[in-house]
């Protein structure tokens, strides 16, 4: 393997990994704040893809407008779903299981709603930007660089929101101690609602950016959900920065893995890695034990 090929594979991995990171960070945010494992998270990704498709292809809205609209719609949808299901379950006994079960049902429900609405057809969105960047024997299309750019921007914005805004403080406080947050005046249920919306929007950003490459089908959420799980286990369940690092790491491991072996056993390796991590470091590779 030459150096430039190796670098190219790392870049391939980082690009896909940045998308895993966005999806994983949504799962991590939801789990972090409300201790809910969202099995319907893949469907936020899938619906985000369809929203962009509807706007860009069906309605002819330019991408730079369509993507923010899709994000907002995904946010509202996520919040609505939280409000009519999780919100009530969290107030009951046995919520840890019932929330997992309800998101499982939601996942199947949303998949098949999409099937009814959009059909089996594989949908795709044209590239937002064209052109190829070539240097030192490495070829990367602009579209892929755009993915990486948007991912970095999104992560930067999210980091700023979490670190430096009132909302971010409230999310972090609620995720660390719900009662303590309530006592200082943070309305946990509203924070949960917003967090769910943000997580859905993060999934939708990933979907919007991937739509020109990964076509959209009612089932596109499932594989990405499994990737998201691996990511959050690697990064420590519930940790936002952990999910970012975990996502990038998984992307790079996959790309380099393809170079070294064949694609066939890739997912087995990813899952085995995940189980091994849980076995030796249940709090994740980057999380801390407490």
């Amino acid at each position, binding site marked *: 393997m030459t150096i430039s090929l190796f670098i190219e594979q790392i870049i391939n991995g980082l690009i896909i990994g940045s998308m895993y990171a966005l999806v994983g960070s949504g799962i991590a945010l939801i789990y972090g704040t409300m201790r809910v494992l969202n099995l319907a998270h893949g469907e936020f990704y899938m619906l985000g893809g369809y929203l962009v498709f509807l706007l860009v292809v069906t309605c002819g809205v330019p991408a730079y407008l369509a993507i923010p609209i899709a994000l907002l719609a995904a946010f509202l949808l996520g919040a609505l779903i939280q409000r009519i299901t999780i919100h009530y379950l969290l107030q009951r006994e046995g919520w840890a299981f019932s929330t997992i079960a309800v998101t499982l049902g939601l996942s199947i429900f949303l998949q098949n709603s999409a099937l009814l609405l959009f059909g089996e057809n594989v949908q795709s969105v044209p590239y937002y930007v064209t052109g190829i960047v070539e240097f030192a024997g490495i070829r990367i299309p602009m579209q892929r660089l755009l993915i990486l750019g948007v991912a970095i921007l999104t992560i930067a914005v999210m980091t700023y929101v979490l670190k430096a805004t009132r909302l971010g*403080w409230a999310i972090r406080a609620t995720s660390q101690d719900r009662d303590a947050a309530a*006592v200082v005046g943070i309305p946990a249920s509203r924070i949960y609602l917003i967090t769910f919306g943000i997580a859905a929007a993060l999934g939708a950003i990933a979907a919007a950016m991937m739509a020109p490459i990964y076509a959209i089908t009612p089932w596109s959420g499932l594989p990405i959900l499994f990737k998201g799980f691996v990511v959050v286990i690697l990064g420590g369940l519930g940790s936002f920065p952990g999910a970012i690092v975990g996502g990038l790491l998984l992307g790079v491991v996959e790309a380099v893995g393809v170079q070294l072996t064949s694609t066939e056993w890739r997912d087995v390796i990813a899952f085995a890695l995940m189980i091994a991590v849980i076995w030796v470091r249940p709090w994740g590779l980057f999380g801390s034990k407490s």
Partner: protein
Amino acid sequence: MAEAPMLQVENLNVLYGDFQILWDVSMTVGAKEVVAVLGPNGSGKSTVLKAIMGLTPVRSGKIIFEGEDLTKVPTHEMVARGISMVLERRRLFGAMTVRENILLGAYHRSVNKDIASRLEWVESLFPILAERRDQIAGRMSGGEQQMVAIARSLMSRPRLLLMDEPYLGLAPKIVSQIAGIIQRINQEGISVVFNEQNVHLSFGVSHRGYLLESGRMMLTGTGEEMIHSDVIRRVYLGV
């Protein structure tokens, strides 16, 4: 109206599932008063405070504060009404800094004006916290954490402060320090309700006490009256 106590708790009943924790508990707290809730382990002391704050759902009964019925008001609205709470075992936001923890005390819209002056006031009560402002709260000692927790709860300038087991797990030296702080807070014109198992510890700072046993209010009175009560002796010494 001026005669009515600041906080009035009437016939509180609280259940966890089918298990009844509090039975018709009533109590009052006057303005600028320090009240101790006493009782052995498992008597329901913490539940009384949590129920007032809305952290535990109340089956029946009333909580009236400054003439307003707060029974159905959610926890996060309490600071807006003038009540604040220090939770058992400090419960800090462990991954955040001391400063962030304290500032979160003024999170609610109704109290996040003139944060600078509030911070100044709180840091004047706990000078050490100003020095440690950038330290991660979770890595501090128990006593320091308790100070952060109290500082946090004061940021909303409450008129009533509830403290759940403020002495729990602290070294004797720290306990007396915290007791001093409670007195200091009271001198600022704030009413304090705290609970504690140890009778003698409680009466160092409180004006009045209540005794709980198995979820029922058994006795109230000043420290002096209670220490000499037969009921106390029976409850604590099993006589």
